[in-house]
């Protein structure tokens, strides 16, 4: 069987339906999507909001006791976790309207896994740092809440910018929005929280990324799906 055996003639489509005709009679100009401008607004608003949250809750008292390289390196990692998934979720490839599903999904999963590993493996502490460990692990829930509260703005803005834009793959794109927002939450926690045990940093600080990605994947497609 060759491809030619499958060749079928074109089908004659029906004329425009009455509902479409009625909508066309009232058609108005709309502002089209400009992904790079949306990304700039998304980054700007999210960073201002994240900085505001950090100013509200204060910076960690042990910051001066920790290695500067670790503070800077951790901040860069969290910032990359914020920038890369959001960029891939909001900006399609040149000449395309379709989301970059695979890359966005990969970025969301990578962020979720790498931050847990980073938190579990690298956790320097100073005299003013706290160690909750397993006994006081549940006491860390305010960090999860703070991280998720920080993630709200990038996720909501991303959902608004992608409103009715995604016919397929919306869950993965939403997960990338959540991972990006969760990473901003992680960045705020990096400068705020002085609890340095591996369970807290690995599962709660990095857990913000996973939880935000899962929540976004669950809720955001209601706004971003083409309906």
């Amino acid at each position: 069987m060759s491809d030619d055996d499958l060749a079928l003639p074109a089908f004659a489509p029906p004329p425009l339906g009455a509902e479409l005709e009625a909508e066309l009679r009232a058609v108005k100009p709309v502002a089209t999507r400009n992904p790079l401008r949306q990304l700039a607004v998304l980054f700007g608003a999210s960073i201002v909001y994240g900085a505001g949250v950090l100013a509200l809750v204060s910076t960690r008292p042990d910051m001066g006791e920790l290695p500067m390289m670790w503070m800077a390196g951790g901040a860069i990692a969290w910032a990359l976790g914020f920038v890369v998934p959001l960029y891939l979720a909001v900006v399609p490839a040149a000449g395309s309207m379709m989301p970059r599903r695979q890359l966005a999904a990969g970025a969301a999963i990578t962020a979720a896994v790498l931050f847990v590993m980073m938190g579990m493996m690298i956790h320097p502490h100073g005299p003013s740092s706290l160690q909750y460990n397993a006994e006081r692990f549940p006491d860390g829930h305010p960090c999860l809440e703070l991280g998720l509260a920080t993630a709200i703005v990038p996720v909501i803005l991303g959902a608004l910018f992608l409103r009715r834009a995604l016919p397929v793959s919306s869950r993965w794109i939403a997960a990338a929005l959540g991972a990006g927002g969760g990473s901003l939450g992680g960045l705020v926690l990096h400068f705020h929280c002085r609890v340095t045990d591996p369970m807290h940093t690995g599962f709660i600080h990095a857990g913000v990324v996973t939880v935000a990605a899962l929540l976004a994947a669950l809720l955001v497609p209601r706004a971003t799906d083409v309906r």
Partner: protein
Amino acid sequence: MARYCDGDASAFRELYAAVSPQLYGYLVKMARSKALADDLLQQTFLKVHRARAAYVRGADPLPWIYAIAHRTFIDEVRKGKRAKVNIGDGDDLPEIAADIRGDAVDAKDEPRVDPELLASTLDALAGLPDQQREAVVLTKLEGKSVSEAAEIAGTSVGAMKVRAHRGYEALRKLLGGRAKVKEAS
């Protein structure tokens, strides 16, 4: 698409005239019912119209429109309404075949297709699972590349390759089996 987003309704009609023949063909092959494909085509363009603000100037809207058609079809199947009844039952085959004989697009330029071959091809397509049928329709009948088909269906290139290969093999067996039955009779 840009003119249409600027409020030019005639540009939408041009878009419809340019895109709807191939999109309709895709939907007929997927839904296996001309009436359902009519409905899905209207729904698809209504969604395109309502989501036109998502257009990115300078971008190719065709894969996006195809993806909307794909999603519309999948939603219809999930609803378990007409699609579930019609897919695979072959009730509409004579109608589709007759239609193609009667008013195929550019019929004057196209060689006439054997209605029996057409019916058996569509019938065999209907025997495939939804995902394999879509992979075969997009890559073999609609002329999309594997990566374009994967983008439209919202899946990975690897998964689309596997679906297309399995679908094509299954279709080959189905069509081969029918040819043998026909020869024997």
